[in-house]
């Protein structure tokens, strides 16, 4: 496959220049204009993109670190270049992937071929055929699904990308958005023309692996009026980086009466700082459906935001977060009701275990012009032991009287009665608890395509193994 070889070549060389710079020249972040220019040169950026990167760098250097959320002390932000350079050292050799991650793969039953894909070896495998089929069908309907960098150089899409790129998540949004603007690399571009409804989900699973562009990838999806797309973001296989920072960015434009479902099962390796920004702008009558499972990473900041900008626009967020040992996962959702008759529905579950910290964080804002809007937030947390932690931090900011806003949250543990009931029917304690936790997570699993739901259930099973002392 053409992209794969290309990307591997770029991977090896792209950021491998840092050691030529004199470190003492740079203060604050250690990231300099020269480095950014070098990235632009490597990528053959257009003039506006060159400027955009440099401007983002300035913003990055001026912007303060976030003063809320989990600690990112373990992240050497003063020497962010290290993380960029790490990319070139990403393991391309399956043998070099640490054993615990390999074990996970074995137990998950992820096929040999996909493991090879993780290692960046472009092998032929079954799923790829499926992918090609989709691509053919997709192309005929006028849908564009390609990598963002080549789309930017394609005159058919260049202007469209320029008009949308980081307009929804501007570099001024927060420090890591600015960083992303300066050093972004890789990612997907999807365009669905008016009225086109894709029956089969598009998956970025293989693409990301193949391109090895995980850390600062940018996803840009534009849905025209009346179209439908289910996009599955592929973090389902753990990626391994020696030191992990992931500051990706996802921008979704949902046109009038269009519906976009965006599903993610994220299982980054557990040394990763996942500071991902996802945002959707939804026009009149349009709908965004987020399905989000967070299992991996050391620290996560993840709050997909839906901006309901046209009358009757709606958002649904269904999420699960499972924080195990050494993990601090701060996840949730944000919704801005900015037009009449908009509605949002947030339903999340979180599980904390073995000292893991999970935080549900949300913001629902209903502006004055959003009369007739409705919002319902429902979050449930499960504590599996007494050394873990689970926090719920929702905010509602309501500025019209013609709205109905509801919020419900619960925290607790697995009921002894439920465990007893299952054990009385012959299940051992481990299985009984795992079954209950899977049931707890079914808000998300029933929203996923079957193979992903199974994988998620496997993940829960894995996390639950040996949890009973």
């Amino acid at each position, binding site marked *: 496959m053409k992209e794969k070889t290309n990307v591997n070549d770029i991977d090896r060389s792209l950021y491998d220049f840092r050691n030529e710079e004199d470190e003492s020249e740079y203060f604050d972040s250690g990231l300099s204009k020269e480095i950014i220019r070098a990235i632009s040169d490597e990528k053959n950026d257009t003039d506006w993109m060159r400027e955009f990167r440099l401007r983002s760098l300035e913003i990055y250097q001026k912007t303060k670190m976030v*003063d*809320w959320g989990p600690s990112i002390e373990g992240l050497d932000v003063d020497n962010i270049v290290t993380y960029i350079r790490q990319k070139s050292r990403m393991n391309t050799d399956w043998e070099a992937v640490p054993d615990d991650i390999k074990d996970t793969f074995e137990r998950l039953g992820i096929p040999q071929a996909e493991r090879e894909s993780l290692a960046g070896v472009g092998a032929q495998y079954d799923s790829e055929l499926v992918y090609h089929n989709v691509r053919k069908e997709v192309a005929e309907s006028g849908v564009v699904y390609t990598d963002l960098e080549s789309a930017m150089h394609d005159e058919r899409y260049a202007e469209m990308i320029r008009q949308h790129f980081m307009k929804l998540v501007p570099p001024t949004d927060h420090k890591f958005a600015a960083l992303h603007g300066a050093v972004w690399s890789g990612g997907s571009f999807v365009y669905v023309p008016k009225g086109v409804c894709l029956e089969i989900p598009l998956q970025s699973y293989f693409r990301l692996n193949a391109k090895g562009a995980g850390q600062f990838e940018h996803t840009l999806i534009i849905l025209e009026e009346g179209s439908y797309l289910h996009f599955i973001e592929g973090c389902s296989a753990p990626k391994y980086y020696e030191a992990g920072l992931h500051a990706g960015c996802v921008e979704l434009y949902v046109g009038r009466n269009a519906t976009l479902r965006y599903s993610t099962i994220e299982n980054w390796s557990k040394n990763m700082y996942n500071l991902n920004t996802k945002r959707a702008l939804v026009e009149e009558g349009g709908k965004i459906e987020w399905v989000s499972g967070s299992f991996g990473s050391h620290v996560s900041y993840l709050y997909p935001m839906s901006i309901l900008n046209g009358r009757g626009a709606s958002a649904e967020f269904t999420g699960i977060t499972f924080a195990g040992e050494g993990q601090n996962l701060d996840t949730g959702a*944000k919704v801005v009701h900015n037009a009449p008759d908009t509605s949002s529905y947030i339903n999340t579950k979180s599980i904390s275990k073995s000292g893991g910290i999970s*935080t549900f*964080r949300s*913001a629902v*804002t209903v502006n*004055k012009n959003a*009369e007739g809007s409705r919002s319902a937030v429902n979050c449930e*947390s499960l*504590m*599996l*032991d*007494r050394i*873990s*932690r*689970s*926090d*719920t*931090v*929702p*905010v*509602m*900011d*309501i*500025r*019209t*009287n*013609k*709205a*109905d*806003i*509801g*919020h*419900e*949250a*619960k*925290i*607790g*543990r697995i009921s002894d009665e439920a465990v007893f009931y299952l054990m009385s029917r012959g299940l051992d304690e481990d299985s009984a608890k795992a079954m209950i936790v899977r049931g707890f997570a079914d808000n998300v699993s029933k929203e996923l395509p079957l193979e992903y739901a199974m994988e998620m259930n496997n993940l829960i099973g894995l996390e639950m193994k040996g949890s009973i002392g």
Partner: protein
Amino acid sequence: MDNKRLNILPVPTFGWLGVNDAVREIAVLPDVESITVECRQTEPVRIDLSDNKEYEINVCANEGESLTVIEYNTADSSSVSTKIKAKSGSRVKLIQVIAAAGQTVNNVSAEVLDNASFEYVLLTLSGADTLCEIKADLAGRGAGFDANIGYKVSNEDKLDINLLASHKGKKTVSNIAVSGVLSNKADKTFKGTIDFLNGAVGAVGAEKEEVLLLDESVINKTVPLILCAEEDVEGSHGASIGRIDEKQVFYMQSRGLDEQRIYELMANAKIIRLLKYIDDEQTLLRINNALDGGNNDE
């Protein structure tokens, strides 16, 4: 004038929401008055806060005793700090009514020991800028905290409440019920946190806020936190904000009430709910007068 950060949210969140704190210019008040309530009281202790000054009120209930303190605040601007100690098996009830004009900085902190209970009632009726911080430290085994809060905010008034129930002891219980009505450019923030610390085995905490918004000039911020570092606990919170449920409106309409009357009734209900916790005729009378200038035929 001092610029101070008040009512700091125990766990900060997205800065742009403006709920992490309340930064205010705090008027410097000339006098300090200290009041101590200690011995066994059969009658409620009524404290009138009508002057522009700093009040320091110390309340201590000895083991097994029960006492009620009622603070009625009609000052223009005041700063009130009420410190409560509820020793083992005691019961302290604090009723605060705020019918102020200007800025009120109202702090309540309570230490609640084994099997003691702290009942708190807050009713805010007026005041250009009211800041309330309530901290209940449920330190003892079986300590209980009941908070009933009602507010009526209007006329460009600001109200910021920051409440924290810290569950430290085993089998501690907190129950927080908040209801209120906003109209005419009211700006209200309610931050309520239930914090289950490690060790609070068997603790239960519940929190609920119901807000009725009467027009579209208002700002309502609701921030209900649950922090949890213990497995064997039960926490819940609920909030409902906005207009009256469509089905309730239909039911009442079907009996002949028009929408305006329904809203009047429901708005009053949010305040009247509080009155049943105020078991003092004298205070009730004052509240009724403040509410509708004696226009009540009941």
